[in-house]
């Protein structure tokens, strides 16, 4: 898979996360503090989608959300424990970026991912302050085989 295609795949994952977080916000079921957090996370993921779309030489408007992930997140993020599910999403996305770095051939693409990955890792630790792995892992990545 070319770097552009890989970036567009991950952009589609980010778009799915944006959409489901916004549905959750529209429901109005979160506390004020949770609403503030999820609003920021949704905005960040939208900006990450824009950046990855650019790596894939596409505008944000051309990015379609990954429907497989969106359907999955409808069952978790919109379920009984949304903040727990959101933490899991942030960990999975971080792992996805770690996995991408082993596949991307160009340093420009790697640089874009390297500016995103730490932010999503910090999302995870902001939600769960004890989420401090000694090293980031790619083990729980959203992979092409399952979400492609």
């Amino acid at each position, binding site marked *: 898979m070319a770097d552009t295609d890989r970036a567009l795949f991950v952009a589609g994952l980010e778009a799915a996360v944006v959409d489901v977080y916004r549905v959750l916000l529209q429901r109005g079921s979160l506390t004020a503090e949770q609403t503030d957090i999820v609003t920021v996370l949704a905005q960040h993921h939208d900006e990450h989608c824009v950046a990855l779309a650019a790596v894939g030489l596409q505008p944000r408007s051309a990015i379609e959300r990954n429907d497989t992930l969106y359907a999955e997140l409808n069952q978790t993020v919109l379920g009984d424990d949304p903040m727990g599910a959101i933490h899991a999403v942030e960990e999975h996305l971080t792992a996805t970026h770690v996995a991408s*770095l*082993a596949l991307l051939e160009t*340093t420009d693409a790697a*640089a874009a991912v*390297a500016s995103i990955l730490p932010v999503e890792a910090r999302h995870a630790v902001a939600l769960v302050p004890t989420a*401090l792995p000694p*090293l980031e*892992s790619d083990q729980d990545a959203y992979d092409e085989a399952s979400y492609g």
Partner: protein
Amino acid sequence: MNRRTFLLGSGAALLLAACGDDDDDAGPSTTITTIPGPGAGSPDDVLLRTGAALALSAAAKNPAAAAAHRSHAELLDPTVTESHPQADAAWATAADAELALAATCQAWAAVLSTPELRQTIMRVGGATARLYAVALSTPPSLPEAFQLTDPAAPDDWLLR
């Protein structure tokens, strides 16, 4: 010109400049032979060696994360056993150390020559960004949308 090209190209440019200049100005010539320099290995080796030393400096500045940072040093270059003297002097707090190390990993992800090495440095960089958030505030605050490469370790900190 990307950062890697700059790093690789600057040594050759300085070498050519020095060969054509007979004056006694020793300024830039001090770095001529240091990338890849005798015994210094490849530019990747220089970055990984420096990164390992920076991780050991971060371990000293942030005892709560010392074990994690020692594992970072071991991953990046297991032959490094000493912390980085300039980082030891410059980094005043745990948050200083974590932010600088995270930014350095990000900066060098655009410089290292292979995807495997770029992934390796960001396995460290992502974990360090988490440690920065914890060192900075309780509870950890949300970041901006993109991490920046400032304040990455400057080029004259490279252990060539």
